[in-house]
């Protein structure tokens, strides 16, 4: 533990929180000359339970929907003061605050071309309020608003392709990352901050409470999501696919069986087939597959 870390211990995240890992990696990659605008969500609640704060950088929370708009104002003010070249501005939020409630503010920020990095911590539901379905919830997940029953197999809708939506704005840099690949995540943040203009990074962060896996499996679950092809790690530059992490694909059952949120699917081969199809489509679309190395 450094004597004066940018993200301090003593925050009230659950044991094994993936978001806490990713948030610390992002702010450490960005450095101390950073201003953070945070939307409502788990991250805001567990880091800044008044009167304590875990952040050692200037940090502001306004509303659920407008972290991108608040960051736009901060960036405009810095530009007027002539300090923008030495200061990074980061807007961050969860998947609900980005894909559902904050989408129009995010789109406006991308369209106006502000020099801001938007980081979305994607834990695939509204975890803070009790696991409700969001736009980034994957197909088949058991949430409190898409419960499993005799007529329901969990969330009936596919995950919203938010990285593609952002890339379609033609912004200089869009990437997806995972809390399990530390160096990859930090490299993407540093690369994004070296580029002028709006940037978007979506980080896959496991939530032991909502995904219902053991707290020491956070990294394994995040790795399996990448290795099965369900969460492709890709980069877009100016709307064109420029990088991807290639994998030796594993069957999706390996990812599903460690999490109780997908428990109901294991007895149902038809549903697993549908999820395998989603993974196969991702693998084909981004060219993720690499042949296994020959056994020596």
């Amino acid at each position: 533990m450094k004597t004066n870390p940018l993200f301090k211990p003593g925050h009230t995240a659950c044991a094994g929180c993936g978001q806490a890992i990713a948030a610390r990696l992002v702010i450490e990659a960005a450095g101390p000359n950073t201003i953070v605008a945070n939307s409502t969500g788990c991250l805001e609640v567990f880091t800044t339970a008044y009167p304590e704060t875990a952040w050692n950088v200037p940090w502001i929370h306004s509303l659920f929907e407008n972290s991108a708009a608040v960051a736009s104002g901060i960036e405009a003010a810095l530009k007027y003061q002539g300090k923008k070249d030495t200061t990074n501005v980061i807007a961050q939020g969860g998947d609900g605050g980005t894909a559902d409630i904050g989408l129009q503010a995010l789109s406006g920020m991308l369209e106006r071309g502000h020099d801001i990095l938007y980081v979305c911590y994607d834990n695939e539901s509204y975890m803070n309020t009790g696991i409700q379905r969001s736009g980034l919830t994957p197909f088949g997940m058991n949430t409190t608003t898409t419960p499993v029953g005799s007529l329901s197999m969990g969330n009936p809708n596919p995950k919203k392709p938010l990285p593609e939506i952002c890339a379609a704005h033609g912004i200089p840099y869009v990437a997806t990352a995972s809390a399990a690949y530390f160096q990859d995540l930090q490299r993407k943040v540093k690369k994004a901050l070296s580029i002028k203009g709006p940037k978007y990074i979506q980080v896959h962060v496991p939530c032991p409470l909502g995904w219902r896996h053991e707290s020491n499996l956070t990294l394994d679950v995040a790795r399996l999501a990448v290795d099965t092809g369900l969460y492709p790690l890709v980069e877009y530059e100016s709307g064109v696919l420029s990088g991807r992490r290639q994998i030796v694909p594993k069957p999706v059952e390996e990812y599903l069986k460690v999490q109780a949120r997908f428990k109901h699917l294991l007895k149902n081969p038809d549903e697993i087939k549908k999820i395998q199809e989603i993974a196969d489509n991702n693998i084909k679309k981004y060219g993720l597959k690499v042949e296994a190395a020959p056994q020596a």
Partner: protein
Amino acid sequence: MFGPLIVKPQKSQGVKTGAWRVQSRPHFLQKNCIACKMCLLVCPEHCIYGDEKNTYGTDYNYCKGCGLCVKVCPKQDIEMVEETGENN
């Protein structure tokens, strides 16, 4: 009966989340450590310290006992032991 109604904003290091540990805590053996820093990078609490081989440890004032450092250690140099309630 009531605490002060207005409190001074402060750093979160006043919250001793170590009290959350219930069953087990990580124990750093400090024998085969290669200083790869994986435990330091993975800790969600950011309460693991150390920079050279066999110097790593965790601050039990904040450690919530999630067990990620035990899982990520490539040398199995960290193990989960039963929680005793002592702070060192």
